[in-house]
């Protein structure tokens, strides 16, 4: 795997391989010294054209825990404000010979474009309404740890599906892992034809009791140029997940940041069935696994690379 641009590009086996690796990085995080030398001397550049807390901080820390050098460029405060184009910015950063570029951009397909302009491995950290693959991987990781497997698990994705790259990536990832997904929200916020991605559609919360997992989405006020709902209050009245609508056996997830009192009630966020904090913790180890997969993945492949025994080859050979 050269780049991580979308969940669509990944097979179930590839997803599982990344998640298995994330498990071993979780062990690194429990040590006193939470750092391994794997990517020593490599450079990871992050280029964020949109604001972010979780994604950018966790990629930053993930790179550092792998001993890579990390440079973060944010559009605000950089030459992007002087009108530098994406292509020129990427060319500039590529001059540092980075091993990876992590990019977030408001336009769908931006990461794909960047991949064509640079030698570095490109990680899509969110491109417009298209995809956010690392989020989907960390969500699958979180659920897999809780439930063991996603096969046959019923997941409802509730809220602003139209503007949500998380919804797209997660829907695809959950389906690939064998879950049965329903998307739910007001008709104006459900893209037409989304059933083709392999999910059911519901325009009300009726029937949500069948779900084992409720995945709420953020109302993306910044992407709403027209009114999709009469008011946030009315949206909350119809679609807010609160402890009354959530039964105690259901798990609650949200990609963050949460609009408290809009898509989730404060009580629901802080309830024991909420996995929101676990999702953030998973973000770090899954992003370590992604960087490892892209930058070091090939390195661990050759059984005889070090020449000594115990490299896992089928018959236990050691050249």
């Amino acid at each position, binding site marked *: 795997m050269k780049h991580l641009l979308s969940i669509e590009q990944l097979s179930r086996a590839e997803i599982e391989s990344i998640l298995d690796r994330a498990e071993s990085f979780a062990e690194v995080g429990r040590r006193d010294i939470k750092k391994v030398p794997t990517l020593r001397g490599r450079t990871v550049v992050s280029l964020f054209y949109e604001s972010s807390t979780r994604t950018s901080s966790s990629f930053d820390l993930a790179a550092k825990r792998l001993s890579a050098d990390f440079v973060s460029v944010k559009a605000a405060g950089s030459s992007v404000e002087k009108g530098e184009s994406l292509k020129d910015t990427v060319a500039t950063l590529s001059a540092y010979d980075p091993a990876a570029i992590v990019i977030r951009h408001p336009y769908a397909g931006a990461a794909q474009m960047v991949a064509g302009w640079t030698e570095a491995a490109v990680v899509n950290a969110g491109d417009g309404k298209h995809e956010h693959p690392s989020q989907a991987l960390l969500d699958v990781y979180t659920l897999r740890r809780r439930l063991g497997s996603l096969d046959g698990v019923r997941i409802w994705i509730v809220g602003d599906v139209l503007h949500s790259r998380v919804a797209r990536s997660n829907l695809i990832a959950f389906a690939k892992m064998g879950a049965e997904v329903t998307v739910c929200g007001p008709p104006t916020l459900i893209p037409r034809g989304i059933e083709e991605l392999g999910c059911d559609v519901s325009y009300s919360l009726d029937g949500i009791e069948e779900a084992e997992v409720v995945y709420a989405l953020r109302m993306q006020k910044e992407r709403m140029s027209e009114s999709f709902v009469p008011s946030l209050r009315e949206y909350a009245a119809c679609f807010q997940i609160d402890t009354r609508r959530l039964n105690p056996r259901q798990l609650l997830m949200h990609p963050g940041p949460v609009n408290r009192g809009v898509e989730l009630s404060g009580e629901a966020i802080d309830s024991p069935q909420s996995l929101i904090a676990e999702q953030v913790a998973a973000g770090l180890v899954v992003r370590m696994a992604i960087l490892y997969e892209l930058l070091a993945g090939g390195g661990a492949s050759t059984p005889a690379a070090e020449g000594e025994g*115990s490299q896992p080859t089928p018959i236990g050979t050691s*050249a």
Partner: protein
Amino acid sequence: MNEKVVLEHDDLRRTLRRIAHEIAEKNPNAERLAVVGIHTRGAVLARRLHVFLGELTGSDLPIGDIDISFYRDDVGAKAPGSQPVVHASHIDFDLSERTVVLVDDVLYTGRTVRAAIEALFDYGRPRRVQLAVLCDRGHRELPFRPDYVGKNLPTAREERVNVRLEEIDGTDGVTISEETPMEVTQ
């Protein structure tokens, strides 16, 4: 492919038992000992040594295993291909003031041992590190010398040393085989 048997099933067990005796002899203060195996087959050997050492010393020594994938010196240097599953390391005891016996199946260039020692030091500061290997096949590229050797195997670089263990491979034994140059990646 021509395979020459160098250790049979019973030889391998006797060899391990002898190594356990040597470890016990060299470390009279057994309560300070710990055994750490290097994944995958070193970890299996460590578990077996741990049982023998328990019988010899009468104490239940701490045991751990370590995966060196994150510490390799050739990360990213090889072409992408099928990747081994990276195992999590398990060292859930305090290393400080202990003599740690690192266990691996084959000692060759010494690069795995270097990586394992580096990994070990991320868990703590052992008082002493000793190295036990089932086979030493020579061709060292780093200045390591094992403290306990099951069998010295003079080999050519083109040859392969195959260690098979019941827990993984269904049978115990060590063989040397010829490799066609194409398959030798060293």
